[in-house]
């Protein structure tokens, strides 16, 4: 064979063709993910059978066989094969507000509604004027909420002592305060840990490692018992403020390590490019470094938020009444004693925590998709 016969020159372009059938679509997906082998087909069928067996029973327990209205636990004690929603409905106001005076509960509703509206405005990516939302939420809202919830003689709102606060309201308050304060504090600690100034670096490292090395309950007890010793007696921190400070401190240390991971994954070139353009350290950090570092660690940050939301259940050890503690108290009511009542109460609490945590997880996944779409 001569060399010339090995040479090749294309004369017509290769046409573009549609992919073969069964390489895409629902059928192809099922074949690839559910029935890719005999073993996987068995697992798929087994799981479907199990769900088909359990789900109707669970649904019947929660709906058709459940007790929806009762004046006390007697009916629920007789029908032990269904949930006792009557208990949750009767106790709802206590679960929601704790011992907050009934006549003043509208204030909690108003504060929560405003907060929810602002959070939605803030989290909705394409919403107009999100800077305003941020200003209202971070500056105006805390003052407004404090006046509404605590009360103020100026506005004719009777003072409600925080000892009376409780239920879902306190859980949400703790979570929001924890999230809003721990993230910026965590960012500052993470930057401090990478600071060229040894004193700041050492202080950050000591804080982070100390807090990470101690269980949350210990931090709560310390916040509860030590905080009053460090401030003047007339200025003793509020009984609810102490666990709030504790949760912010605890969460900030973990947040700092998460953010540090993001800072470290940023290439040196980004810093050099920012410096070469003449950006100062503060501007470089705010405009170039943090936007990238934080968006890299969104899953970890949200993971911390979810952990923080769960940890709010621990503030009851220093006397605060969060939702789970309110539920515990409600279950102890002798009028409503009964096995299904307890189960119903905890199932309801479980659903409550799941809804919030799942919501946060889905939102973070959504944000990641939005960020990924534009940039890569």
């Amino acid at each position, binding site marked *: 064979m001569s060399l010339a016969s090995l040479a090749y020159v294309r004369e017509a372009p290769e046409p573009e063709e549609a992919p073969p059938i069964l390489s895409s679509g629902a059928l192809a997906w099922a074949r690839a993910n559910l029935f890719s082998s005999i073993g996987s087909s068995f697992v798929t069928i087994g799981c479907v059978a199990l769900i088909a067996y359990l789900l109707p029973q669970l649904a019947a327990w929660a709906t058709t066989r459940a007790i929806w209205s009762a004046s006390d636990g007697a009916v629920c004690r007789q029908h032990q094969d269904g949930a006792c929603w009557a208990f949750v409905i009767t106790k709802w106001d206590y679960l929601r507000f704790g011992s907050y005076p009934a006549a003043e509960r509208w204030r909690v509703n108003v504060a929560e509604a405003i907060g929810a509206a602002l959070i939605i405005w803030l989290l909705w990516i394409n919403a107009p004027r999100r800077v305003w939302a941020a200003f209202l939420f971070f500056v105006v809202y805390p003052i407004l909420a404090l006046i509404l919830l605590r009360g103020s003689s100026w506005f004719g709102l009777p003072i409600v002592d925080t000892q009376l606060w409780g239920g879902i309201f306190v859980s949400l308050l703790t979570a929001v305060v924890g999230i809003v304060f721990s993230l910026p504090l965590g960012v500052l600690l993470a930057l401090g840990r990478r600071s060229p100034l040894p004193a700041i670096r050492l202080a950050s490292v000591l804080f982070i490692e100390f807090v990470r090395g101690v269980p949350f309950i210990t931090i709560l007890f310390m916040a509860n018992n030590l905080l009053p010793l460090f401030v003047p007696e007339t200025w003793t921190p509020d009984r609810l403020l102490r666990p709030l400070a504790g949760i912010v401190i605890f969460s900030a240390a973990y947040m700092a390590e998460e953010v540090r991971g993001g800072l470290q994954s940023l290439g040196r070139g980004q810093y*050099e*490019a920012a410096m*070469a*353009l*003449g*950006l100062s350290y503060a501007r470089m950090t705010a405009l170039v470094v943090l936007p990238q570092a934080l968006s890299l660690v969104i899953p970890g940050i949200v993971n911390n938020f979810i952990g923080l939301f769960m940890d709010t259940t621990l503030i009851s050890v220093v006397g605060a009444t969060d939702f789970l503690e309110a539920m515990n108290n409600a279950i102890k009511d002798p009028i409503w004693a009964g096995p299904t009542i307890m189960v119903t109460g905890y199932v309801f609490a479980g659903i409550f925590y799941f809804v919030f945590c799942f919501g946060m997880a889905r939102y973070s996944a959504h944000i990641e998709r939005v960020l990924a779409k534009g*940039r890569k």
Partner: protein
Amino acid sequence: MSSSLADADRSDEAAIRFSGVHKWYGSFHVLRNINLTVGRGERIVVCGPSGSGKSTLIRCVNRLEEHQRGSIVVDGVELTDDIKRIDEVRREVGMVFQNFNLFPHLSILENCTLAPIWVRKMPRGEAEELASKLLARVRILNQAHKYPGQLSGGQQQRAAIARALCMTPKIMLFDEPTSSLDPEMVKEVLDTMSELAQEGMTMIVVTHEMGFARQVADRIVFMDLGEIVEVNAPLPFFQHPQHERTKLFLSQILHIRH
């Protein structure tokens, strides 16, 4: 105006003056007694084998690296630990990197307007106008609203050049600007740089592109082992290299390229 007075004071100064500059990385002596004066509007190409200190040399000009002995005066300002002086120099010196180092979270336009807005305090509209003008000049205005990750390497590097030019620098530093580009994209970046050179920009370019050096450079600086071995105009540099090390280097790279 005080600024024009300052310019007058500096008018007889060189753009950049290295005097007896030494630098060490730990105990490694990376720059050894560098003496070099770059005139205003002069185009310098720095070449040499890898590890010869050529990147370190230009990174000292805007203090991305700090030198330990000798003095570097940029546009009349001596570089010291004084952060104000460093910022002053960085405002006047643009830099283009081997790996582009565009900010991936900002669009091309935002990359270009970031420093004018935050460092020069330029109003946003004015900064966007300037950026559009410069993006048109490097022929990627139609990509202005895309993100860096959506552009080819050559387009990204041209965007990086536009970003540096948006600060209206007096001096431009290029640190191997074509070394991480696909072969087909080298020319578009070199063309952009040649245009810039024709407009009288003071440039120091670290590159292995000898064709570019031959056409554009006023002088070529050859470095090896942290010292300047030979400085000459392109024609004599390529045709009659004096130092043995230069001859060896040229024979190696020209052999590869032809």
